[in-house]
């Protein structure tokens, strides 16, 4: 790798690492996680709907 390219890459890695200076999970990702969990919990599901691993196959028409 050329020196200039290597410097740019190392700066990117340092910038990424810096996002986590306050903990393992950033506040943005924490918020996204909570919103996604809420979205899934509020989605109405019939009791006949199984998890995808049990329900794979070709649909009956």
């Amino acid at each position: 790798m050329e020196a200039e390219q290597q410097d740019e890459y190392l700066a990117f890695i340092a910038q990424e690492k810096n996002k986590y200076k306050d903990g393992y999970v950033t506040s943005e990702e924490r918020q996204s996680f909570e919103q996604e969990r809420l979205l899934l919990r509020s989605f109405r599901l019939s009791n006949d709907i199984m998890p995808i691993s049990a329900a794979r196959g070709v649909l009956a028409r």
Partner: protein
Amino acid sequence: MISTQLYELTLAEAGALIRSKRLSPTELTEAYIERIESKNNHIQAWAAVTADAARKAALAAEKQIMNGHYNGPLHGIPYGAKDIICTEGVRTAAGSSVDPEYVPATNAAVIERLDSAGAILLGKTTTTEYAYQGGEPPTRNPWNLSHTPGGSSSGSAAAVAAGMASFTLGTQTFGSLIRPAAYNGLTCMKPTFGRISRFGVFYASWSLDHIGTFTRTVEDTAITLEALAGHDSRDPSTLPGAAPFFTQALDTDIRGMVLGLPDSFFVAEDPAITEALNAAIQVLTQLGVQFKKIKLPDCMDEAIAAHRMTMRAEGAAYHMDKYETHADKYGPSMREQLELGYELSAVDYLRAQRVRTVFRNDMMRLFYEVDAILTPSTPTLALAGYKTGSPMFNGPFTNAGLPAMTVPMGLEPSSQLPIGMQLAGPLLGEDKLLAIGHRFQQATNWHRMTAAFYGTK
């Protein structure tokens, strides 16, 4: 007499020359090794190059062919494998510092199949850490070196685009095949879930991982898919029975086929992508294809949430033992997702899987009214820098386990970055995508275009 450089041949062209003994596997392998030696310093597509083993395998293939034991279109064809795919005796570090010197004792099922077909492993290609988002490698896009090649299969896409392998293996858990292929002007299929065995590949998510190949044409995609597909008892998700002859689908008549155009969600952010899609629709119309607007499922947002939760939970479960003892060796972005995975309850995980069932059934019903769906492959061109871009246009078909393929459909003039069109099909409907994509490539030249970098010595 061959007038083009050997690294410029498509897989099918090289295969035909090898079959007729006008090209030897040794010549072809040497051409790719020379190309790697001269270009990889700029592209950084390879985590490891196994030149000596490749030369030995090429010589063995040459002897077999000269003795009349030709083994099919992959015999003597050099390829690369993403560095989460286990290779016997060859370091497989998965782009991570967790176990950087890991050397598998056995090959992954896909490597076994390619070995049996006589293909020649050139080495291992770079990946984001364990094929997650984050832990990006330094790999560059050959079309524009200041831009990402995409990911997670970064090196696999860049290697083919730079003429450093005839084809490469990659994986997709969200958008890691289709997105980098589109960013690099390549043709690639993510087949139906279960078409190709994942045995011997580091899992990112058991219920979402797919394997595919980066190639330059639809014909090459069909050849590799035919070699890789099939049941494997070591991966219980693989489909039962024998795999179809995908190359036979290439010449299927596409006149009268109906392509669905989604009414929402797949709206590109870059106007050049929309322009290219409109031009592709014109070409397909001239080829006799019809178009119909389709309404996507109401639960797109919930499906994306379920997809992300599944990746976190299954990733955390898969890495649990290593994470207990080596947490500090994981990169920060992957560690973030694993930590969130450990927080997720079993009830929430199962709810996500039930949402996926609803979404998958809704997606499958779309194909009652159309033969395939047409969208742009990506919302943007390849980004400048190292972030690998958005997989959002690819996620719905990964989540539902339905086949999808990207085919080059344009080039943005100022950045010189390629644009891909995504075709998605019904369950087990790879044949339709291959037929449409092949006819499109017979009518256009986008797949023949190469980066300015490509032609340099």
